């Protein structure tokens, strides 16, 4: 599984990190460290990745199932 964070629409709500710190991170100003990127998800963190994606008010996170 991979996760893609929209570079334009990630606007720093930091909800992904708040509900799923084990997978999501935010930078010094509260924007996703994966902003504008697509990253791999380790199998044990798939549930966390999905939870964080659901938490985004801007729907900036897309889950890409393999």
């Amino acid at each position: 599984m991979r996760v893609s964070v929209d570079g334009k629409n990630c606007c720093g709500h930091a909800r992904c990190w708040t509900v799923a710190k084990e997978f999501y991170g935010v930078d010094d100003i509260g924007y996703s460290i994966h902003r504008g990127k697509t990253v791999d998800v380790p199998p044990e963190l798939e549930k966390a990745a999905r939870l964080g994606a659901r938490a985004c008010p801007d729907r900036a996170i897309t889950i890409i199932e393999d």
Partner: protein
Amino acid sequence: MTDNTTADKAPSVEELKARFGRDIFNDFDYDDPRFNEQFTDVLEEHLAHCPVARSNVGTGFWWVSRNDDVRRLAQDWETFSSAKGYMPNRPEGLPFLYPEESDPPRHTAWRTVLNPHLSPVTVANYEKSIADDTHELIDRFIGNGGCEFITEFGSILPGWAFFKNILGVPIEDLAMLVDGVEMGTFAPPEERQVHMGKVFAYLENYLKERAKLPPRGDMVDTILKGVKYEDGSEAPWEHKVSVLVDITFGGIATTTYVMASAIKHMAENPADRDFLAANPDAMAQAVEEFARAYPPIVGIGRSCTRDVEVAGTKMKEGDYVMLAYSASSRDPRAVENATTVNIHRETVPHNTFGAGPHRCIGSNLARLEIRIVLQEWLKRIPKFSIKPGTEAVYITGFLRSMRQLDIVW
């Protein structure tokens, strides 16, 4: 998520008039006192049957309610611009608030330098200050067995948190400033300008005074330093003052409303209150649900830069559109059991802090404030209820707020 919201037939104009006193689909007015009384009913009716309502107030505007539409409009700043102001029927000549009433790249230039001062990491430094303020205010009334939450707590704390920690104004000026913002927001409309003007004058003077002092590395210094605009010019003095005013007015009354609503909810729902008292770690997620369920911003505006169709309505270039964030957070298409306040939700995506580039810059501070206040409150006053014989008093316009909440313990 099944869309069972349009399964029933849309009401007729006669039915709307009977129920709401007006045709809320084609003749909406958020200043109508009936809206204050029937707030959630109106939002739900729009969500079910009227994705784009029309208001004829002044030169008129569209009112968009559904989560998908609101989110797309908030993100599509190229089509839905903030540069003509966040309010419809703007008085001619009124200076624009920066950066709120601007678009990228100018908006981005300001947000880039301002964001660090309100980041999750930065605001975490204010936890103790906010906790101390909470206890100082509670100390004043805890022996009385009750309080009027708004005047004795809710309208004071957000101002203290902001003015002390973010702006660093002298303590002795706090009371006047908090009062000025309160009156500037809630006095009778014809009196508000006077109070706003006083706060504006204070802030401009404060900026001038701070410019003479050594820098502290805070938001005020950042504003003083300014930014370079897309045309190469430096942000003028007037814009710097405007930014300070914008940030000041954004986060005080709004935070008061969510805080007061949470207290009211806990007063009326002892199971939730007792659960949160016993499980303080659950407060952060509860705060998210309180923010969703009790939105202080009812709707906020944009201006169409081109002809565009939204949910079947053809809008023209120059049309004013309002994003009903209060409704979009209750859209059953986006939130399960949207009308229920459920503090145990696993995720709570909502639009109380907006969406897109104008996402509320103070959202991290607001969340922290509300969480700390509620956690500390429950340590001191774990059981409380609404004073018998009283009811909460609300006012509603483009902002919704509570003006009176009597509680007892």
